[in-house]
């Protein structure tokens, strides 16, 4: 058997690590560990010269295991795996020790931080001894895609893929396509008629030979893995259709919260009080009237109804400020004499041409009144002397307690994730954040992928978004999908469970444990087997296997136990 030869590299990360950790001492300590051939430090291991150093050492010193003590493996594990690969070593012969995010950045005692770094690196050294080469696997990609949700994002994604000649299954739970966008009259900040544009897009979808639309339908089950999914669609109330597809675009969007739950606004009590989507319907009819059919002299638009409020939704619903400004403009056109009030908590005009809309609108005799959610939200009461209601609150910019009469009150209601987000996230193996929105793979660098390969989340199912953002995301996801289809194959998870058939006794503990149905009982051999294509490598079955027959590649008992031994081994101080 080839002799184990380990190279240890401790990164300074400029001063990020070196300031709090004595990197030289860490490297020196590792030199004496069993099988360690060399231990070096370098300013930036992830830089090209840093990687080249590893590659050179692997070749010159015949290293066959590498430990890199640097930042979180979640950031650079792939970088260094590639470096190993470039040096002709199996990429899995690498172990990283996280001495930045979980050490130098969070501790303030240099001696302690150095001691901890030595432990963590010792753990990695101990572990890497037991690493085994793992080989990548490639599977073909089914060029068809499933799109869940027929809003503006789903429609865009469907057309992009279909126009590229790929089969698309579009599943919409309602009986009409268009989602929230279809309920809007004009867009902000440009006042385009979105319904006109949507009609064209929907017509194209309906006649497109590559798109199969399932209306009033829901996805019931999804099995498989990137490139090779299989799903069940329940159409209407009974029919179940089984389809195969290679990628999934989740575009389930969002919905407005029920403002009834926020009692101080009196929604449902006073007919003068309506939601923004109610108002869109009013606007679509062409004239601004309140529920009594009267042209209001005072129109109040209340922002952040349920948004940015710990009691309801802590996040910003993002589209309301601009929509509210749009309303002010439209009311101003329809009723030039009316008083228009914007009751806001903070005005957010972050997008292209949005600040301009704000500036423009504020010049149109619109009164902006600020309230503080923490100090108390506006309370709507019947106006004792006027025809409408009275909105009472402490106006933050003047410090005055004021009353504002209004015959029409528009609530800019918060948006929340769709109610089927939970089940779809479970079916697709994706995660939801604390607010029920889908979590993207990386919020900055990979904003439409998810941690499940082949599943993309676009549009407002991630967080409230405006139309151009949703459209961009849909196109980004489809570009990714078309790239994988063009490539023809995808690489699938190599960190999977494996069964040692010499030990497995067929007790079948592992079968039910697997959330992906990857473990099966082989009646003929009387042992369990793992379908590696389905396995995601969580390792739960390994921990449930009483006989030790199942191990999780790259996270074997031996590897983890030796990491514990390494971490707990005595280290020199200072």
């Amino acid at each position, binding site marked *: 058997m080839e002799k184990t030869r380990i190279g240890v590299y401790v990164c300074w990360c400029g001063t990020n690590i070196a300031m709090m950790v004595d990197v030289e001492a860490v490297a020196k300590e590792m030199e004496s560990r069993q099988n360690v051939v060399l231990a070096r430090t370098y300013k930036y291991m992830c830089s090209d010269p840093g990687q080249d150093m590893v590659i050179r050492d692997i070749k010159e010193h015949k290293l066959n295991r590498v430990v890199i003590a640097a930042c979180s493996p979640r950031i650079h594990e792939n970088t260094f795996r590639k470096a190993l690969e470039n040096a002709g070593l199996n990429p899995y012969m690498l172990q990283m020790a996280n001495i930045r995010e979980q050490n130098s950045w969070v501790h303030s005692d240099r001696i302690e931080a150095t001691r901890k770094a030595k432990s963590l690196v010792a753990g990695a050294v101990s572990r890497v001894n037991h690493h085994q080469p793992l080989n990548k696997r490639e599977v073909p990609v089914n060029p068809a895609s499933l799109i869940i949700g027929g809003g503006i994002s789903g429609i865009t994604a469907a057309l992009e893929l279909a126009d590229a000649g790929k089969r698309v299954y579009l599943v919409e739970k309602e009986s009409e396509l268009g989602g929230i966008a279809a309920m809007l009259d004009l867009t902000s900040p440009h006042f385009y008629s979105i319904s006109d544009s949507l009609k064209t897009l929907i017509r194209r979808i309906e006649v497109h030979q590559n798109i199969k639309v399932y209306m009033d339908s829901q996805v019931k089950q999804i099995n498989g893995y990137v490139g090779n999914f299989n799903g069940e669609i329940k159409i209407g109330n009974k029919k179940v259709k089984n389809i195969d597809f290679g990628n999934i675009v989740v575009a389930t969007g969002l919905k407005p919260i029920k403002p009834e739950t926020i009692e101080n606004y009196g929604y449902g009590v006073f007919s003068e009080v309506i939601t923004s989507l109610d108002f869109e319907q009013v606007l679509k009819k062409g004239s601004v009237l309140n529920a009594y059919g009267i042209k209001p002299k005072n129109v109040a638009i209340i922002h952040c109804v349920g948004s940015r409020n710990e009691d309801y939704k802590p996040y910003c619903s993002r589209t309301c400020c601009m929509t509210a400004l749009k309303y002010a403009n439209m009311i101003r056109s329809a009723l030039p004499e009316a008083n228009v009030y914007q009751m806001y908590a903070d005005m957010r005009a972050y997008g292209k041409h949005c600040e301009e809309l704000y500036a423009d609108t*504020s*010049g149109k005799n619109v*009164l902006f009144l600020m309230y503080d959610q923490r100090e108390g939200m506006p309370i709507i009461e019947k106006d004792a002397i006027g025809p409408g209601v009275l909105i009472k609150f402490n106006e933050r*910019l*003047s410090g*005055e*307690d*004021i009353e504002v009469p209004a015959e029409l009150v528009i609530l800019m209601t918060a948006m929340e994730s769709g109610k089927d987000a939970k089940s779809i996230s479970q079916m697709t193996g994706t995660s939801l954040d604390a607010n029920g929105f889908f979590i993207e793979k990386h919020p900055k660098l990979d904003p439409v992928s998810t941690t499940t390969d082949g599943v993309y989340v676009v549009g407002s199912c991630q967080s409230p978004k405006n139309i151009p953002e949703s459209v961009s995301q849909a196109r980004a996801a489809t570009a990714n999908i078309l790239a994988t289809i063009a490539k023809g194959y995808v690489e699938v998870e190599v960190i999977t469970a494996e069964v040692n058939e010499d030990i497995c006794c067929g007790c079948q503990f592992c079968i039910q444990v697997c959330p992906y149905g990857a473990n099966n009982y082989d009646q003929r051999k009387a042992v369990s087997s793992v379908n590696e294509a389905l396995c995601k490598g969580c390792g739960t079955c390994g921990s449930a296997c009483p006989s030790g027959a199942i191990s999780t590649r790259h996270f074997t008992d031996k590897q983890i136990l030796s990491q514990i031994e390494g971490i707990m081994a005595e280290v020199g101080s200072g």
Partner: protein
Amino acid sequence: MSTRINPDFKNELTHFGKDEWNECYHCGNCTAICPLSKDGFLFPRKDLRAIQMGLQDKLDASLEPWLCYYCGECSETCPRDANPAELMMTLRRYLTSRYDKSGLAKLFYTNHIWEYVVLGLMFLAIVVAFLVFLPLKTDAALMVNESGGVMINSLVEGINAERFIGIIEYGDWTMAIVIALLLVSNIVVMFYKSVLSENGIRIPFSSYFTEAWQLVWNFATQSRFSKCDDKQYWIGHLLLMTGYTIMFILVVVFLPLFQIETVEPWWHWQRLLGYYATFGILFFLTIVTIKRLQKRDVKLKYSHPSDWIFIVMLALTTISGILVHIFRLQGMVAATYYTYVIHLAILVPMLMVEVPFSKWSHLAYRPFAIYFARLKTVAAEVEKEKSHKELVPAVGS
């Protein structure tokens, strides 16, 4: 107690100058830059907010517009070009109209035709009065004294010099008393609105006297203009105020000493004072006229008709006064008489209209506002000491 907002109020204010109240989004830059602003004293944003929301009572009680000396830094810093400095100017005009219970100030500011008409009528009245009751002697050419100057008090037909100066002095005093009464009544209203109307305020009686020096000092020196970076503005106001005051005192109080038949040598104190006053006023007028026309300096960029009326009237008064002096020294009898009549026909309406009802009044309201603000601060300090509680000072000084 909550206040019902009045969105129509801002329309009323548009007649006083600035007519756009929406640009401000309350970033607070103006408050940050304003040399008068102190912690918790949201000057000048607070007044702007009161206008936007139509909090009229708040504004009527506000002294801040008078404390502001229009350095213009707020307007220069404003990211939205909301021009808060000009807003304060507008508020000063508005407040002038609110202190005046006769309604004339409001009439003049909101419709300046009326101001022209009143000025014109008074001009005509004085000219007519002179021509009818105090006409030029037919042999006036004889009324030249031995030094070659015109004997101004003896120019009128049928009235001896003593009688004439008595009439003029009587007129002076009448005018001064009328103006003073009007101005004082306005200041009383101002005091009531800005100080007394505030609930629970208790001003220690002694402080009325101990703080009175503020009034005199600020009136005489206009020292708060010196807080602006541009010192020229302060010097201009200082020269104007001193010159103007000297002239006013000489004309009203010491007329018999001043308007005399003999011509004193040029170094005589009377003449020197007169020259100083003339120079002071002219200097100021020249500067503001040029700058108002240039429209570069932010505080002189936005001119209201009332601003120009004041400048023009003051200029005409001064020029006519200079002409009287020149004609007199040159022994030009008729010219002296007619310019004298015109001088009075300009001076009197100017004082009658400007002092209680228009632009001039700010020279009085400003020192009083500082005085009142001091009184309020003293009251607040006493109250604070009494209760040992943290109180936000009502106004800074």
